[in-house]
């Protein structure tokens, strides 16, 4: 099962970087592009995933600021993003995911040299960093929910949970994939000539990282309108006097 997830169920095909002479194997003739079909397939998948996240980001950006407008018009409810988003906390999460990209590429360098110990150490580090990120996201969602931000509370909540939730789902799949590679390696199933399988998993993992680079900027760092929801101004607005 783990081997099937890790993509190692069949005998090794290509190896190394999956380009040039490595793209072919005795059992598999070289491809016309000179690139291993599995690697090209992963890049094509990532290309399609750009459009998937593009549509989610577009929706988020279209509705960005609408929750505040509705609130000011007395037709929406909070909490609003400027009350909830914790930049220092999310910065740590972003840093963790960024560092997981480094550990992933070090794991690849390890298996390419045939250093199984290095591969296992860095792969497990990547899994732990990915799990830390997911734990942080679960905690953030939990906190927001207890602050009153349910999925359908306002336009911010729906677009925020959908965008970051789908990203979290991608991270979860990546953690499962890497954990499978780690387990298979313990059973002797990952060898130097199968480094391409690790590289393909790494491409997916790095993609998850670059999507978060975009989300971190667009969702968290670009400031939101500061709408008063407490105190005298809020009371006046609620009475229709503002």
């Amino acid at each position, binding site marked *: 099962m783990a081997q099937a997830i890790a993509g190692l169920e069949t005998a090794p095909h290509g190896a*190394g*970087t999956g*380009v*040039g*002479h*490595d*793209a072919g194997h005795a059992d598999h003739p*070289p491809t016309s*592009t*000179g*690139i291993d079909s599995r*690697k090209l397939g992963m*890049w094509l998948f*990532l*290309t*399609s*995933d*750009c*459009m998937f*996240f*593009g*549509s989610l*980001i*577009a929706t988020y*950006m*279209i509705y960005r600021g*609408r929750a505040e*407008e*509705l609130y000011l*018009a007395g*037709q*929406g409810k909070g909490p609003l993003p400027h009350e909830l988003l914790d*930049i*220092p906390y999310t*910065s740590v999460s972003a*840093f963790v995911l*960024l*560092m997981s*990209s*480094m550990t*992933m*590429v*070090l794991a*690849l*360098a390890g298996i*390419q040299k045939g250093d199984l110990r290095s591969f296992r150490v860095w792969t497990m580090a990547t899994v732990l960093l990915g799990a830390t990120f997911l734990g942080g996201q679960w905690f953030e969602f939990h906190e927001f929910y207890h602050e009153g931000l349910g999925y359908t509370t306002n*336009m911010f909540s729906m677009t925020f949970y959908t965008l970051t939730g789908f990203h979290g789902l991608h991270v979860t799949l990546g953690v499962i994939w890497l954990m499978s590679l780690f387990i298979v390696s313990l059973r002797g199933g990952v060898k130097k000539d199968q480094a391409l399988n690790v*590289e393909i998993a*790494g491409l997916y993992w*790095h*993609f998850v*990282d*670059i999507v978060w*680079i*975009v989300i*971190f*900027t667009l969702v968290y*760092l*670009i*400031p939101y309108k500061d709408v008063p929801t407490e105190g005298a101004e809020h009371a006046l607005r609620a009475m229709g006097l503002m």
Partner: protein
Amino acid sequence: MAQASGHSVAPHVDEHDDAHEGHPGELTYIKVAAILAMITVSEVVIYYIQWMHDSGALVPTLLVLSAVKFATVIAYFMHLKFDPRMLTWTFLFGIAFGAALILAFIALFNNHPIQYATNLLP
């Protein structure tokens, strides 16, 4: 074959790097990660500089820093700097299509806004 399909020239790697088949070694990866970490710290620091908010420089600066991080990860960690150009063009096509999708939707909804709040629009 790879050369014929536009294989990039051999990458520059550090002398003590143990590069593998055109990919940089561990030292290069660690240096790149350190640069990415510094950019992330810069992003957070400028977020707390009030002048950046007041001058309107915050959003463009954040977008540029984000783009630099994005490009660095795909160039070094995803090896597009070292792999055949075909992969770069394939991915750039996806990014361009995704960006066009975002801009088209934003333009569409800006020109034909949905009247969410009845007392907001004239």
